[in-house]
């Protein structure tokens, strides 16, 4: 991976000016030159080759309906005028990403029409010829080069390049990206590349660029709004207000204008055409339930699980609990729809909103008083984390919003590293149900284990700290036990459907494994015992991961709020 670093270390410090926080207008030519200069080491090429070959091999792998979603968007943007993009309903997969992404699809659709005109045929629904698969998968691989390039820049200017190289490599080869982008099919690698670029700019002191890039990112995919509060506070405090507390009008105006300009570029055509309400209604459909089909492992998953358990308890023991009848029906067996609790009080969007903001604001207050890069990174992670844990209708894929910034903190010290490991293991495991076909499942398990191995062993040697008090030792042991539970859980999840299938011979053939779009047959066909158990593996996965993720959140929050101001990690020096 970074075998060459010993030899290369002296040379590595090259990108002058990237480390120094130059407040305004970092000479454009300098960083452009740095960006263009390809100083890629053979070990880094190795990773590129390795990952590209793996991704190529994954071409024929399972792909979710997101593949068709993106194909449909190619068709929409190619064959319809811009005024119809957000109105088209030919397919059920309507365009519901912000305009930059639509433009991006438009760009991709041009070569697509040369490769195979049928790809961009609007009425050619569910087209999955080899040409379409190869083309779309290739665009994912190519667009992910943005991520690779940004991660390289992270190494170049870092305080500890050899550790940063491990972190960069771990992000570039992240199982999350492999599962979500290259099997399931999405363009997260590309967009997280932009996010990391923005963070990189913040590290290099170019906050204006950081803000602009984040605005651009928001116009690619609005889910990054989860992170927006941290950006807002950080840029406001450290860029628009001087350390003495005076408003820097010039900075403020330039940032505000730049961000507004980005939004105008993005939404301009739709403003002119007066389609904003339509676009917004597509972007924010408030008709969904609390939980996604498969409960993303967040706080609400625990609440829902508790409700299920109470319901069982109530129906068994006949305890005097008020049971909401509609909740009985919607037992959230993993089916899409609104979650109605049977025993517990129902959760409304406003509750989730308040909870999210409350937890975010704790971190944001701290960020306001210590607007350093490291603090920003932690607050950013916590912001995404809080949104993930308490948000309304969160997708399990959103865990990447937590894991990616958290990775940058991993080598800071043991406390961060341990949080990173717990969150990564739980987060990646929580992505496993996205991929349910057996062949790909073997791949995801082996690949993720290897990834954890290659990240854990070298980093833990770098940051290890001996537990300083009995409490720490106990927590340490408990965390290890928790992590050791994942292999067992995987074994259970793998074997459970087989065992159930063997026990219930007549329905053996169509035991439904939950799929991301959950087109499972209605359980009416099955004997009652089977249906109740059918989603047990998913529930268990969700709950077990939720425990770890919530613990990771508390841990990170605690570390963030309580870290000695004297502690000097590698990132503190920036």
């Amino acid at each position, binding site marked *: 991976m970074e075998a060459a670093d010993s030899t290369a270390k002296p040379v590595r410090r090259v990108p002058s000016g990237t480390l120094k926080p130059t407040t305004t207008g970092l000479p454009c030519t300098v960083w452009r030159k740095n960006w263009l200069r390809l100083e890629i080491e053979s070990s880094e090429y190795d990773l590129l080759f390795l990952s590209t070959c793996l991704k190529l091999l*994954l071409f024929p792998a399972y792909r979710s309906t997101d593949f068709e979603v993106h194909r449909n968007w190619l068709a929409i943007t190619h064959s319809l005028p811009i005024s119809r993009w957000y109105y088209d309903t030919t397919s059920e997969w309507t365009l519901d990403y912000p305009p930059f992404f639509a433009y991006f699809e438009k760009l991709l659709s041009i070569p697509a029409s040369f490769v195979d005109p049928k790809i961009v045929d609007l009425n050619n629904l569910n087209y999955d010829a080899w040409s379409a698969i190869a083309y779309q998968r290739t665009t994912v691989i190519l667009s992910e080069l943005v991520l690779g390039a940004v991660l390289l820049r992270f190494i170049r200017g870092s305080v500890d390049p050899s550790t940063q190289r491990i972190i960069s490599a771990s992000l570039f080869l992240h199982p999350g990206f492999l599962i979500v982008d290259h099997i399931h099919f999405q363009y997260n690698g590309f967009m997280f590349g932009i996010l990391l670029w923005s963070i990189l700019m913040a590290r290099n002191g170019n906050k204006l660029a950081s803000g602009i890039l984040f605005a651009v990112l928001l116009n690619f995919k609005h889910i990054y709004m989860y992170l927006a509060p941290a950006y807002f506070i950080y840029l406001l405090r450290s860029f628009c207000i001087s350390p003495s507390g005076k408003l820097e009008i010039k900075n403020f105006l330039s940032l505000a204008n730049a961000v507004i300009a980005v939004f105008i570029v993005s939404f301009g055509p739709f403003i002119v055409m007066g389609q904003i309400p339509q676009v917004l209604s597509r972007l924010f459909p408030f008709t969904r339930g609390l939980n996604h089909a498969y409960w993303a492992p967040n706080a609400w998953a625990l609440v829902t699980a508790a409700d299920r358990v109470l319901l069982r308890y109530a129906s068994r023991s006949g305890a005097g609990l008020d049971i909401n009848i509609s909740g009985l029906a919607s037992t959230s067996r993993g089916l899409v729809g609104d979650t109605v609790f049977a025993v517990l009080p129902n959760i409304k969007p406003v509750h989730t909103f308040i909870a999210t903001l409350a937890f975010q604001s704790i971190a944001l207050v701290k960020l306001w008083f210590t607007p350093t890069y490291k603090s920003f990174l932690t607050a950013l992670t916590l912001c995404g984390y809080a949104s993930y844990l308490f948000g309304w209708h969160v997708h399990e894929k959103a865990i990447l919003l937590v894991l990616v910034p958290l990775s940058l903190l991993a080598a800071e010290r043991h406390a961060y590293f341990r949080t990173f490991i717990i969150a990564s293991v739980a987060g990646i495991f929580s992505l496993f149900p996205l991929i349910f076909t057996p062949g790909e499942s073997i791949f995801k398990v082996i690949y993720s284990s290897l990834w954890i191995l290659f990240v854990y062993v070298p980093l833990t040697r770098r940051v290890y700290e001996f537990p300083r008090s009995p409490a720490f030792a106990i927590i340490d042991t408990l965390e290890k036990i928790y992590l050791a539970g994942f292999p067992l859980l995987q074994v259970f999840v793998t074997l459970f459907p087989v065992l159930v299938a063997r026990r219930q011979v007549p329905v053996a053939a169509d035991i439904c494994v939950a799929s991301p779009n959950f087109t499972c047959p209605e359980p009416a066909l099955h004997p009652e015992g089977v249906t109740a158990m059918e989603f047990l593996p998913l529930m268990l996965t969700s709950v077990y991961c939720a425990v770890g993720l919530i613990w990771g959140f508390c841990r990170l929050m605690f570390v963030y709020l309580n870290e000695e101001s004297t502690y000097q990690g590698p990132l503190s020096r920036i």
Partner: protein
Amino acid sequence: MDSEGLSALPPDGPRKSPHRVRTISVNSMRSIPAIAALRSHSEYERPEILAPTPRQAVVGNRHLLENSATWVNLRHSDSPESSRAVSPTSPGRRFSSLSGHPVRFPTTLSSLQETEHAAGAPPDRGPEQAMARRWIRWMHKRGMKGWVVPSALLASTCVKVCVSLGSYSGEGIPPMFGDYEAQRHWMELTIHLPIRRWYTYDTHYWGLDYPPLTAYVSWLCGVVGHWLEPSWVALDTSRGIETEGSKIFMRSTVIILDALIYVPALLMFTRIWQGSRSKRTQNLALVTLLLQPALLLVDFGHFQYNSVMLGFALLAINLFALGQDLAGAVCFVLSLGFKQMALYYSPAIGGYLIAKCIYLGFPNGGKLFLRLALVTSMSFLVLFLPFLPPFAPISSIFDPMTRIFPFGRGLFEDKVANFWCASNVVFKWRKWASSAFLVKLSAALTALGFLPTVLVSLRVAWQTQLIAPRQGGSTLHIPVLPLLPYALLTSSMSFFLFSFQVHEKTILLPLLPITLLLSGAPMDSTVFGWGVLANNVAVFSMWPLLKREGLGVQYIALTILWNRLLGYNPFRLPSKSFIQLLSLGVYAAGLGLHILELLILPPGRYPDMFAVLNVLISTPVFCLVWLWSIKCGVEMTWALGGLGNVSPRHTRTSLVGDDEKPFESATSSIGPGQGRRRAPFDFEQDLTTDQT
């Protein structure tokens, strides 16, 4: 090559024995030192390394370590010494690879290696050149050296699983489908029919035409499949079944069988044949072998079980290297019993075993010969037992035989990069001669093709024959052993080029020995150049097949990945050498052909134009590999057996005095019977690297 020769050897220590001069030390019979400390042998010429004190110290340690370096107990990396990151060529390493045993060498080899040293210092093989090296180095640096092998195995499994996601032979092409359906059909057939009908049931639909072990393995897989889901292997009704579950089941049988047989054999190979190299080099070889693209494509993409046959053959070779000839012979019979293609190896294996018998001399060799004959025929008997008299009428043995050796089919099928198909472009064999004649002709040419290697082995054995044999001879390494990989290459390549009814997939057989050879070779050696060229061309020669089966992406990805892992770059081969020019030319032609194929459609008159061009590019390379392997074999014979009476005594006499003491002390400290086993490849590398 006689008494002068002996005087040039390091003296024998206390146990000098009265045996004929041209041999390896008979002493070694008791203390199994084996021939091939030849790399270290070259160190005899280096006075500073032969300084007495350090040798003794190290010898003590090394000896204990290496004693466990057999396949039985592979881990000897716990010692700081062996695990130290020493590059294989560093003097320290070479030094420590010397055991203190009275190892004897025919002097001629030393003269060969003398020239080798004169040619210049060993080239710097820094770890910066190959991806696999960089990775292993990184793992060591990060304190993960214990994880190298497990993670290499896991990663290769990962790649295999990925390849398995792709399409397979005959997917969705009724009514006959392809090799996948053949294998699946055999499972269905074996579990539902009595044994006697296995070879006769509906032979028009993929009748069983592999030897009985395949049938037994199919039966086992079929039983498991039936237990999991009866419809996957239902008789007749399951023909062409392509449900998700059945696909996964079939794919996993390949991966599991591969993991059970081939992967351990590879691991064992690196530990035995490269036992005296550094751990890193062994692991590098393991990575190289695990991800060999041709095998991955055929077994996990196209769908076959070649790795089982190759695994058994490799196990046999490993056991020969350990001196376990009888077990090795059984393994080879199993290999033959799994797929008759293993016959391609049999001249080399048979040659080796006979050579060993000759080498051991009259009583021991004769005994070994009888035992081998007995064990081999018994294992065949057991394999075919269900088709033999107590269980079946004698006539039923002919069913498998006629199915296994289909002389009724044509000279070649499809387009295959061998002599017949390539020459068919200009010379229409089938018009010119009858089928029966062509069978004879091809048999004669094949025999002519592998004859050199057999003769060479026998000659070496004869020249180094033991006159005063001792007990326990069968555990001894014999000088022919290092010849074995070359012999396997020669014989399998000659079968591939000249024999009857060859498929393009059969190139896997010659690829195994050449990949074994290249796996431990330095990156700028000719062996490496030939090995990678042969592998790449082999994959290229299968392109028409892979393209037809929709494995194009896998073809590109695996080839690039493997070449990158090896750090292969034809420009880095010895400058302007034949192999470099050849490689560049072949790659240019292959790339040109691919581009041409992308750009234009074949003209209507020649629909097979690209396949034929492919054959015309690949065949010459395979022929050259074949000739090269013969050349290497002959050169090695000179090294082992001598050119005759030429004895370069002068190269070494001066060192004798120096050698005497350390050897004595070392032997006495070790005691008898504890010799370390030597890695036959060591010297072979040195030899071929710079000789050719």
